[in-house]
Structure formats: C-alpha cells, structure tokens
C-alpha cells in the first residue's frame, strides 16, 4: 500500500503475470512510467485520487474492502472478498 506492491501482487495472483509483465500492466492502467510504481510521491497522490487505499490513515478515505472494490475495478480483476461483499449487499452486477 505504500506504493504499488499490492497492486502488482494482485496481477501475479490473478493473472499469473511475471514481475515485468505485472509492472507494465500496472503502469499502463495507472498511466505512469514503470519506475514511478515505486515512487512514493507519485503513488501516494494516485492512490488518494483513485481511492486505492493509503498506508497513512486518512479518516474517511477508502481502506479495506472499499479500497479493494476500487482496485478490482481499476485492474479489471476478480477479488474474492469483494465478490462476496457485493453479493451480500445486493450490489448491482
């Protein structure tokens, strides 16, 4: 959550992407250069703007399941906990 490690991890887990492919995919989705995936200055602002969860706690900003919903949507992946949550609250398909 500090930069983009969790996001890259999701791509390895859900699409079996090796590290360079996962980083390229992430950088493409975020519209940044690969080197900025680990740039705190860039990623902090992006994460805040996109609601992906911040490692420093801002009251009321998305964390946990709320942030994971945003992450799943941005990355176009299935996150199982998000799927269950949506089914339980009647989230529209």
């Amino acid at each position, binding site marked *: *959550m*500090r930069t983009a*490690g*969790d996001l*890259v*991890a*999701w791509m*390895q*887990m*859900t699409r*079996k*992407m*090796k*590290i360079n492919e*996962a980083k390229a995919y992430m950088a493409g989705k975020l519209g940044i250069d*690969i*080197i900025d*995936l*680990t*740039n705190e200055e860039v990623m902090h602002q992006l994460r805040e703007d996109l609601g*992906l*969860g911040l*490692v420093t*706690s801002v009251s009321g900003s998305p*964390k*946990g*399941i709320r*942030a*994971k919903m945003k*992450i799943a949507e941005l990355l176009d992946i*299935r*996150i*199982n*906990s*998000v*799927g*269950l*949550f949506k089914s339980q609250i009647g989230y529209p398909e």
Partner: protein
Amino acid sequence: MSDEILTRMGDGERITMSASELKEEILTGTEDAAEKGRIAQLTAEELDKLFEIMADPSRMVSVEPGQEVIVTDDGGTMSFYSGQDGGGVGVPLSRMQAILTYERACGADTTSMGHSDYSYKPVKSIINFETNEYYTASQMTTAPFFYGAQPNMGLYYQPDGPCVNPAELFAEGDIEGAKKTQEEAAEHLRRDLGFVVRKFDEVGCEGINFDTSGSAGDADYMAALQAVRDLKKDLPHMPMILGASGEFVLGMHGSVEFDGKRLAGMYPQEQVQVAEAAGADIAGVAVNTNTNESVAWNLARAATFVKAATAASNIPVHVNVGMGVGGVPMMEQPPVDSVSRVSKTLVQLGKADGL
C-alpha cells in the same frame, strides 16, 4: 576495496575473506548447483556481479529503482505475537492487529494469516474459527490477504494420524508397506487440503498458500499438486501459491508421479513446471542453506538454482528467503547484511518475481 571483506558463514558467524577466497567460494557454489541440478552455472559476468554484491562494504545493499519485486510470506504476521520457537517477538497483538500492522506499518505488499500450528490438518478441526477470523480481517485489509499453512503429510502418521509410520516399516525392511502407507496418507492429505480451501472460498478468501509442500517427501508433494489441480477445476478464481520445501524433492516413496513425471529428485526448474501444470498461480522455490559453507557459496548456489527455475517457469516464482533458505544464514535473527545481499542477488541474477 579492502582485501579483508566482511562476510558470513551459513550459520551467521561473521568472518573475513580475501577477494580471491570470496571469488572461489562463489565459483564452487555455482558449480555445486550446476552439477547437482544438471543446469548451467552462473556466467562469468554474473559471477563478477555476485562478487561485487558480496564485497560491497555497505552494511545493507539493494536493487536499483525499477527493479523492485513483491513479497509474500508464510505466516509472517505470527512473528509479532509468537515466541522464540515461532521466530516471534512476543508482542501480544491479536491476529487482526498483527495483520494490519504488517500491512500498514511495515508496508507489506501482501499479508497472510495462519493457524499457530501452521499445518492444514489441525486447521480442519477448527475450520470455523479460522474462516470467521479470516472473513473479519478481510474486510479491513487492502493488500492481498492469503490464508497459509503447510501440507505436512507427516501429521497423518501414527501416533498423530491414522496411517502407520513408514519409518517403522522401512526399519523392518517392508519397503512396499512403507510406500503403501505414504500413498494412504497422501489421500488423506489431498482430501483435507480440498476441504479446508473450499471452506475458505465460502468466506471470500483472496488466496491460499501451500507452504513447504513436499516436506515429508515426494508423496506429500504429490498430494499438494493433486489438491491444487482438484481445486482449480472447481475454484478457478482462487489464487494459489505452491511453495516447495527444498532444492530437491525427497524420495521417501521414490515412485510417485505427477503427469507421468517422477517427483523424487526434482530440482527447482522441474518443481516450478509441475506446479504450473497443476494450476498454481505462483511457484515457491526453496534452497536450503548449508551452515558449514559460507554465505557466498550458499548464495551462488541458490542463485544458480533460482535462475534455472525462473527461466523454466511461465508463472511467477517467489523464492523463500527466510532463515536457512535462499542463502540466508540459519539463525534466529538473520543478519541484514546477508538478507539484503541474498535479496539483491536473487532478483538481479536469479530473476525472481518475488521473495
């Protein structure tokens, strides 16, 4: 550069070596891996690079910006609240607190939880406790959140389990009996792995880690591979890490196969391929540290195995770099100088996708 280079042995003892001694250690380490694994040695350029890493006078080293990889773990959050025997610091955090501390204060790329008795068999009997706690924590975590445990087929042998202990049968010269009891234990294990993972799927589990598969030998490894394949048929959406327990699969049975390939004696480049064939999303590689050899020897050896494994794999490869594996010294508090050198080497030379 000083001719007295500070380095360590595989048991963590700090020593000094000359440049020529260090280079010799690196060469013999890669030669050992190449001979055992029937793989290529590190190239001359890679050997030079490894020497530079090992001889760097800094306490800690790292990769260049842009080369970073991600981290997964095997119950790392237990390190907060467990005791010395669990490698922990004994701070009485709840599991939720430990998980969130690891995610946010330590900046972990992924988190996990597991039973204190970190094997799948004991999880089965308290499954509702575990799934309840997982579900609650998963509402709060943002980073990928795994549930992990070890297949540990040895728990299915008497007196802990239903099957006759093969060690007793080997001692009596009953080889066929010993094989048969391992096959029986493997069936129990395969079934239990399936049971536990399906229960976790019901609570939205984000990923499963089968840690140190094969620790009880080739039948243990076979059961884990079979379970991954079974589960991927029903739960294709469940990410799975299949981690190995050593640089070769112990032939306790000697004859079990997966997809027609004998598992006994498989080295990492073959282990990652069967893991991929089974359907795993991430393959874990473990290379055991020899405490009688230097870190340089161990790391050159590990890097040689890892390089072959990542080249052979179409799925991400994460290398175990806990104490006593990957070239990391076998000691309670792995020294940061060694851990950082291992990490840098396995990423830059081994091409690991994660640690």
